């Protein structure tokens, strides 16, 4: 199946066949994934970078950074390294490095929370649609088709444009954008799993549908859904910052990368390098999550 936001083709492959050597003995699937990830230095590097950005955002108030809201008319648009301003100042004289670190808070919030929510909602809807089939499937999947008929950027802009600006509306808009694709992935994986004999065997024991879903379906649907969801974080970071860039999403003076990029854009003739920095932060974050997702996909052996 081809996905709407990234064009990725995700095929559910099931767990990798690991030969029963001494090392692979009696280990669960996730232990194997962790082992393979540990040997992937490239992915580990970007994992460390992403963790650094996340950590910086989390502990920003305790880092002893300059006040990100302190404006100064005298110190507007100063270059990198200017008198205690590591990365210079913005158009209102606020410390740019501090604002970039703080800005990670909203940008990461808009990147991660909608994907988590959409994974829970869309994944559950997909599992229900795939497992129960027939009318339930029709109802859920046809509604998803309608939302699928909107390009993701357009849908996000349409929803938050109508709801108005603000972080909460941005979160709602992005969550709604990601639900349909996650629902589809979960649905097609569930349909494949439902046909397997171990589901029949579980039925034959007289287990209830929910017990079968909990024990036998969710664990196996998780792989393709998690791999796919991880690839969406980078899309969500780009889209979320994009909304703020358009004046939806996060509103000033709260620092946010997209919104900072938007307001610094007016100053490209004065301090071009400074103006490009918030976008660089978005790029690095998105890049990190994409490489992590790619590494995860390889470690989980899901074909892309």
């Amino acid at each position, binding site marked *: 199946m081809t996905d709407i936001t990234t064009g990725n083709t995700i095929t559910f492959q*099931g*767990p990798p066949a*690991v030969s029963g050597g001494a090392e692979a*003995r009696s280990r669960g699937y996730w232990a194997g994934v962790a082992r393979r990830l540990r040997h992937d230095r490239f992915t580990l590097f970007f994992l460390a970078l992403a963790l650094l950005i996340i950590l910086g955002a989390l502990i920003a108030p305790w880092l002893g950074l300059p006040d990100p809201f302190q404006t100064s008319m005298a110190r507007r648009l100063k270059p990198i390294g200017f008198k205690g301003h590591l990365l210079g100042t913005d158009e209102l004289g606020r410390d740019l490095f501090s604002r970039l670190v703080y800005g990670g808070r909203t940008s990461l919030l808009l990147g991660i929370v909608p994907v988590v929510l959409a994974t829970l909602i869309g994944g559950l809807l997909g599992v229900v649609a795939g497992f129960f089939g027939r009318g339930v499937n029709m109802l859920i999947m046809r509604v998803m088709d309608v939302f699928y008929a909107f390009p993701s950027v357009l849908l996000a802009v349409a929803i938050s444009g109508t709801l108005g600006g603000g972080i909460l509306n941005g979160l709602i808009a992005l969550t709604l954008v990601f639900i349909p694709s996650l629902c589809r992935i979960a649905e097609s994986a569930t349909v494949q799993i439902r046909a397997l*004999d171990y589901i029949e065997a579980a039925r034959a*024991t*007289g287990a209830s549908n929910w017990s079968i879903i909990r024990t036998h379906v969710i664990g196996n649907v998780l792989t393709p859904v998690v791999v796919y969801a991880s690839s969406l974080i980078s899309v969500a970071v780009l889209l979320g910052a994009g909304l703020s860039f358009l004046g939806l999403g996060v509103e000033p003076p709260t620092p946010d990368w997209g919104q900072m990029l938007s307001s610094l854009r007016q100053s490209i003739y004065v301090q071009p390098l400074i103006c490009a920095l918030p976008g660089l932060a978005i790029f690095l974050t998105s890049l990190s999550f994409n490489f992590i997702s790619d590494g995860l996909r390889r470690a989980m052996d899901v074909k892309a």
Partner: protein
Amino acid sequence: MFLVDTTSTATDERDVGGAAQPMLIVRDLKKHFAVRGAAVRSTARVHAVDGVSFTVAKGETLGVVGESGCGKSTLGKLLMHLIDADSGELIFDGGAIGTRDMPLTQLRRNLQMVFQDSSSSLNPRLSIETSIAYGPRVHGASASEAKAKARDLLVRVGLRPDIFAGRYPHELSGGQKQRVNIARALALDPRMIILDESVSALDKSVEAQVLNLLRRLREDLRLTYIFISHDLNVVQYISDRVLVMYMGKIVEIGAVDEIYRRPRHPYTKALLRSRLSSSPDERIKLAPLTGDPPNPINPPPGCRFRARCPHARDLCATAEPVLEDGATGRKVACHFAEELADA
């Protein structure tokens, strides 16, 4: 050595109807599937199981044979109530299934199934122990009880719990997986097990080991088997009686020795002739079964085998033969069974 409690006692207190009461009575079981994607969806139906009746006595093994697509797997799933029958009656040890005498939950405890494909029959994300313990957990056993039960059963199927309990399906060979599948089917202490092509995917040497395990379990636990397979040699080895299916119908049923020695239905004859012999002297002399079974969608009236039958006559095109009693409990569905007896 641990013993599985209830079933190993001398008299089974779950035996309601006594030894003479058949374990399972099947009456006129029918299942038709609507054909998907048909231009006119009204009438296109596959008659997967079309009016099948038979009984299985306590402690016996009934083999079910037929070509692929004859409905034998559908039959197994119908008996397990994994799919709903269109019509028909099922009576387990005197209790009609679905009534107060034999509610579905009780049937699940009494009747279990071992599936064919050993690679998709176990959840890849669960350890062997957890997979086996799942059934008892569903029926209310505590986690430790279910775990102990799983370990007992691993011993029973010949896998050391200290080595295998924590392993995952991808770490097992095909034969080991099939042993686990058998253990899982035993986890609810069933009295009857449906084995659907349960050894078909295994190597010949492993197959023999698993068959011997099944025979031993049958003696130890007083089990009743329905053994579905396309492999006539395996069926002969394990079964007491055999049921031959063709396009959703029983064409012949009877004691395994009788049928293998003197098949009466032309289809059974052809089927037995076409099997591979281990002896090079027993060459196939007569023409084996030729052609494919006719389209199972909306079969024509008359005998379903007539298009491939060397003895077909006018009567076969108009009247459908019924399964008629013969000597020694044998039943044949052929108009000319008596006539062809010596052919």
